[in-house]
């Protein structure tokens, strides 16, 4: 066994274990943390196939930003574990059916027929001067520039929609106007009264 395959099996094992823990563990905060571990392991696997840009961006975007906000929300939810366990049996047949369907679909879509070694050969090892980032950038902004821009516009629409959904103007909300706060003068707030000194009688 070479060193690479040792690393591969180690990170794959961690990835599968943490992914399984995400769905089986009851505490939502711990589940989110296991998801973080799964992302980091996946990034390490990508690093192994010399996709360093994708690997680092996965950590940067998902671990560094998305999961932090996710934790932020999950930590504030008060979960009642006993309530969660209720109705497990009722949902089991339907849930099991969906799970089996998803496994079958995934096996068809990303099975060895599509992603086997004969379809996707092992990438040739490139020299240390080869920049994955540059290659990806050149491809994204030349060959795939329209799909890339369309994806960007779709994301923008999603951002605007999310902001529009959460923007509720309530008439009784008090806003602070920073411009007014900065422009305030001492004489607006403070009144100095001059009065003669009083002597002890």
């Amino acid at each position, binding site marked *: 066994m070479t*060193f690479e395959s040792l690393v591969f099996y180690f990170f794959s094992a961690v990835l599968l274990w943490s992914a399984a823990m995400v769905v089986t563990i009851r505490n939502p*905060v*711990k589940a989110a*943390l296991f998801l*973080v571990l799964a992302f980091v392991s996946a990034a390490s696997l990508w690093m192994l196939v010399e996709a*360093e*840009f994708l690997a*680092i*961006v996965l*950590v*940067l975007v998902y*671990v*560094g*930003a998305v999961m*932090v*906000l996710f*934790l*932020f929300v999950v*930590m*504030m939810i008060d979960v009642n574990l006993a309530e969660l366990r209720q109705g497990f049996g009722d949902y089991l047949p339907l849930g099991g059916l969906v799970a089996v369907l998803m496994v079958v679909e995934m096996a068809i879509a990303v099975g060895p027929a599509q992603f086997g070694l004969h379809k996707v050969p092992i990438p040739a090892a490139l020299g*240390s001067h*080869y*920049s*994955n*980032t540059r290659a990806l950038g050149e491809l994204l902004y030349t060959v795939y520039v329209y799909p890339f821009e369309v994806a960007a516009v779709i994301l923008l629409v999603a951002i605007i929609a999310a902001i529009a959904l959460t923007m509720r103007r309530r008439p009784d909300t008090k806003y*602070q106007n*920073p411009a007014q706060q900065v422009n305030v003068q001492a004489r607006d707030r403070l009144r100095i009264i001059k009065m003669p000194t009083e002597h002890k009688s």
Partner: protein
Amino acid sequence: MGSLGTLWVSFPAWSQILLWDLLKIVAIVVPLMLSVAYLTFAERKVISYMQVRVGPNRVGPRGWLQPIADALKLLLKEIIVPTGANKILFVLAPVLAIMPALVAWAVVPFTPSLVLANVNAGLLFVLAVTSMGVYGVVIAGWASNSKYAFLGSLRSAAQIVAYEIAMGFALVGVLMAAGTLNLRKITLAQSGGFWHWLFLPLFPLFIVYFISGVAETNRLPFDVAEGESEIVAGFHVEYSGMTFALFFLAEYANMILLSALTTVLFLGGWLSPFDFAPFTWVPPFVWFLLKVSTVLFLYLWLRATFPRYRYDQIMRLGWKVLIPVTLVWIGVMGVVIFFTPWAFLFYR
């Protein structure tokens, strides 16, 4: 010496590489930890002089052994785990806080040849690793089972995520100017006197980067995550002894890291400010240390000067001031580089 040489050769090749790399890592981490210890001392001294006090001067000659005494005290103190706390995560949190602050040093170039890993995507690596630092704070706040700690970690999470965006955009400007992600090449792109350093053409981004750096490290005036006058000590209120010391070390190691990155990205790294005789005699590493110390002094100065920001002001500054400034400057750079004859101002 001869017998040592034969002993070395008798090791298998992979273990030689491993041992050699371990040795290099120790050679970076040990001086780093020492500088963290003495940075705390420098901070206390600098702030005391700014406040017309003397500062620590009792332990050792002129107080020089004060950080050692502090470290010993923290080592010997008991670690108290609060009731209802999640024990594993409670202990894991300080480790998660200090880990990124140490890992990122792997790609920081100290001199043209002195760098642990000269990787192509160095800048991205630093960004990704430092973005993981927030987990220490968030997990610490949640695992302590304390309201104050929880509030502190929520504040910190929102603040760090907001300022990371501004920081990332500031680095986009550096990428556009240097044309590479490799930190060593970014420094080399700035060679030829201080007027070639990137902080001049990217001045707004430099300022944004510095301010976001202060916010990322939870330093004053952005230290609402600790906010001792509001939420006791924020996310690390339940920590004591060595677990607290790790948070403390992480904050200061992050400060040094961000100063080193500011130096490498905007202030020409190890390069001397002038390309002629008396300045080129100074070794590159000394220039690097001098620049890092200058930026660190700015951090200490800020702490002594400014009061704490209000929380909504922090959010407003991050989202409505810093991010638009970076976006505008990136736009200006793009237009100038591609459509005007003054591209030489930005692109090297």
